[in-house]
């Protein structure tokens, strides 16, 4: 009886994973950092036959971050599963600085995982934990372990348990299909949130990670919707004449900045979500769009062509004139603040094309981060280490990510159609 239910569970898992994989994005590391720390992640004892390879998920997470350079499994002479069994000399001879070992066990209601992180050069155990998994969420547990390891070594909070929202498109002209998806930060376990034969654009996470605001043309015109990610329930927040675009949440989650052209040309407005009242922020004859809210809640970043071409401006909600931030080149747009509010990531038109760039707010020096040249829609990880963006590969839209220092990058190609407009979620736990 018990073995039968196990078979059932296994079949169900197979079905789920095959369904989900239809729109999964797979990671390709495109540039590794030369300063990445060598780490070994030993396969977890007892995990053979489990629906997920926990150590592999952890290893991929760490590699993708650009902070780590994992040792290939084939180079591991031995596979210890607990700290007492780790021979430091063996791993030192492999030039490994850190080692992750662990065990996995199936339990009544799920799984139990144990992991330990070792400092090989310091010959000590740094951290360890027993993780209880309810149901089959082994991937979630693996990302949690990655978060713990990452923070222990780098002192930066891990963002592996976060999500990304993105838009897919297929077809051309009047015959197109659009989808809004939410997936794990590694592109796996994607779930469709919305589908339409009209454009979907500009998804934006609420600060608590529970809702998405986005633009949908499903009524034949652009309108901003707010959707509860878990329940799918949604409301139409705006449907003014003209552009209803570029929604972005205030850090307190009570207001949404947006671009509306109801009075002529696109202007920045702030809507109070509770009362639906609007406050107009910009007022001129030029394009003002793509607002972003500073983490301190006191400033708005936006794109304006008031100087002739698109440039980034910063407006203090405490009053005063908008201040121009970018002066390099004649196209700087779609800015996003770093989580500390001290840098902006943006799209810069260079001599090569449209690229992801970074600029410190304290200066006006602009640093190009990406190597691709058809980049759009940068979105910053909540820990500030990576920027995900849309670009092109072989004529298809793909998501790509680059580290905030530009040293490492990876790509998330999709099996079918264009993928664009990524939005990295806030921390969810």
């Amino acid at each position, binding site marked *: 009886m018990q073995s039968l239910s196990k078979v059932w569970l296994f079949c169900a898992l197979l079905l789920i994973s095959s369904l989900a994989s239809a729109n999964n994005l797979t990671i390709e590391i495109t540039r590794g950092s030369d300063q990445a720390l060598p780490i070994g992640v030993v396969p977890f004892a007892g995990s053979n036959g489990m629906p997920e390879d926990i150590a592999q998920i952890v290893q991929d997470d760490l590699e993708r971050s650009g902070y780590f350079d994992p040792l290939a499994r084939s180079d591991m002479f031995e596979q210890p599963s607990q700290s007492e069994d780790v021979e430091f000399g063996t791993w030192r001879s492999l030039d490994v600085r850190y080692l992750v070992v662990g065990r996995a066990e199936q339990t009544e209601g799920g799984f139990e995982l144990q992991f330990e992180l070792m400092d090989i050069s310091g010959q000590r155990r740094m951290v360890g934990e027993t993780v209880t998994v309810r149901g089959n969420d082994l991937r979630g547990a693996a990302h949690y372990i990655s978060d713990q390891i990452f923070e222990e070594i780098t002192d930066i909070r891990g963002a592996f348990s976060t999500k990304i929202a993105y838009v897919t*498109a297929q077809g*051309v*002209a*009047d015959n*197109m299909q659009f989808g809004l998806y939410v997936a794990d930060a590694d592109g796996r376990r994607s779930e469709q949130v919305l589908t339409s034969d009209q*454009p979907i*654009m*500009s998804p934006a996470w609420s600060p608590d990670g529970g809702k998405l605001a986005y633009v949908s*043309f499903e009524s*034949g*015109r*652009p309108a901003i919707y707010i959707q509860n990610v878990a329940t799918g329930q949604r409301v139409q927040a705006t449907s003014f*004449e*003209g*552009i209803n*675009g*570029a929604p972005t949440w205030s850090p307190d989650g009570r207001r949404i900045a947006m*671009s509306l*052209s109801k009075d002529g*040309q*696109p202007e920045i407005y702030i809507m109070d979500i509770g009362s639906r009242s609007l406050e107009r922020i910009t007022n001129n*004859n030029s*394009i003002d*769009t*793509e607002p972003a809210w500073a983490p301190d809640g006191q400033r708005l970043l936006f*794109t304006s*062509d008031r100087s*002739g*071409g*698109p440039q980034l401006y910063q407006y203090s909600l405490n009053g005063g004139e908008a201040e121009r931030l970018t002066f390099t080149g004649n*196209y700087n*747009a*779609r800015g996003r603040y770093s989580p500390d509010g001290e840098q902006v990531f943006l*799209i810069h*038109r260079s001599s090569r094309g*449209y690229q992801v760039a970074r600029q410190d707010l304290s200066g006006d020096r602009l640093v190009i981060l990406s190597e691709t040249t*058809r980049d*759009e*829609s940068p979105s910053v990880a909540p820990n500030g280490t990576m920027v995900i963006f849309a670009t*092109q590969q072989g*004529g298809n839209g793909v998501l790509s990510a680059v580290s905030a220092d530009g040293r490492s990058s990876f790509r998330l190609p999709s099996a079918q159609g264009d993928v*664009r*407009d990524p939005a990295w979620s806030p921390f969810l736990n």
Partner: protein
Amino acid sequence: MQLKPLARSLVAVLSIVVIAGCSSTGGTQDGDSYGSQDGSTTGSSTAGTGTGSQYGSSTGSGSGSGSSQQADSRIPEVRTIYFDYDRDTIKNEYESVVMAHARYLRANPNAQVVLHGHTDERGTREYNMALGERRADAVARFLNIQGVSSSQMSVVSYGEERPAVNGQDESAYAQNRRVVFNY
């Protein structure tokens, strides 16, 4: 920045409209605002050099209107016009297309047109929404100056979201920078 040539063509068209006795109070303001923006920017494209001849072409379209009584009962067949990169200027070669739609709309006051503005894929999505709207707005103003009632027109920008063709070369880009008349 891309308004310079249109300012001149609008003034040209406007004068014809005034001569023809059509009323267009809104159009005068449009022409003025175009002119003032024009002075503050520098042109970055060769498109501006062609505008001198637009006086001639708008005269030509005037002659077209005389023989169009019968044709005005049908929606004009050409419903897409194309734009130069980063511009919302209605090019000479498409003025006759817009004029034909103006005649149709004037002759059919119950007809409604939705002007869909599009851009190519380069640049950021929401900024391109704004550029697509500028193109459709430019056509709407042109129609308005031609005596088409504002109540017959509406504008929807699709930015780069609905390309006419896929592709990453100038030929694909050129086909995607467009305004489509939807009845």
